[in-house]
């Protein structure tokens, strides 16, 4: 550990605001890049599920591709 105490670690020698702000932005970008694909995946699964519910009801075979 480079710092003597936890308070020092938070303060970052007076630059704490900037360092923690930058790392917060980093975290936000990571979280956005995790949440938006998950949402998209749910949406896609839902639309595929709906398609197959309807196709099964109409006895429609899967497309050949």
């Amino acid at each position, binding site marked *: *550990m480079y*710092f003597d105490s936890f308070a020092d670690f938070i303060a970052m020698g007076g630059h704490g605001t900037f*360092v923690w702000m*930058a790392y917060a932005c980093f975290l936000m970008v990571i979280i956005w890049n995790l949440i938006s694909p998950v949402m998209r995946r749910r949406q896609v699964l839902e639309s*595929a599920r709906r398609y197959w519910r309807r196709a099964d009801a109409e006895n429609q075979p899967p497309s050949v591709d």
Partner: protein
Amino acid sequence: MNWTWFHKWGSPKWFFQKTEALVLWFGFLCLILLVVGTVWGLAFAPEDIKQGNSFRIFYIHVPSAILAQSIFMAMAISAVVGLVWRMKLAHIFVQVAAPIGASITLLALVTGAIWGKPTWGTWWVWDARLTSTLIQFFIYLGIISLYQSIENRDTAYKATAIACLVGIVNLPIIKFSVNWWKTLHQPATFKLTEAPSMAAEMWVPGLIMLVGFYLFFAFAVLVRMRSEVLEREKRTAWVREYLEKKNVL
């Protein structure tokens, strides 16, 4: 030469099945690397003599700036593959990489601004690198908005690929002109990093973060690509099987 490995990538089904385990590996590895890099960079690396602890922003700023450029390169290469070999997966890659690239570029810009405040005394400097990164961010936004506003998907894929290529041809000219504009208006006064004299204990966490960033991109892009493949192929039998296996249906 045997090209079957290349042609296999043309099959969405093959891609989907092959990447199932790969995604988890990428996610796991990037999690470890990013956590190790962050903790090391924040708590264990020594501070810079001139910049003090604000130097710790380096560990996210520089990897994100490098990754932002790499993503654009990867998109352009992929655009060529999509246009020449009409490979759907390449088009999907371009489409899903653009928002990730834009977010990473934004991260590089914002962390650059935050770093600038304690180092240069202002949030924003019309520094050559910052300016060309800003313009690169605008190009990303233009490509994303182009894709989103074209209704027909195949047309949108082609148009996005062409826009990517136009962007990559112009990027060196933009970078050069901005650099040149900078030297004309005022002499270069700031150097962001003193790279050559950096101690190993300072750059090693940076390297770990860089690899972590690349793996994170690979992870994020694969997750998104898999969703898009699923959406495209939802009428096929193998997707049905997948849905049943996942207990969605």
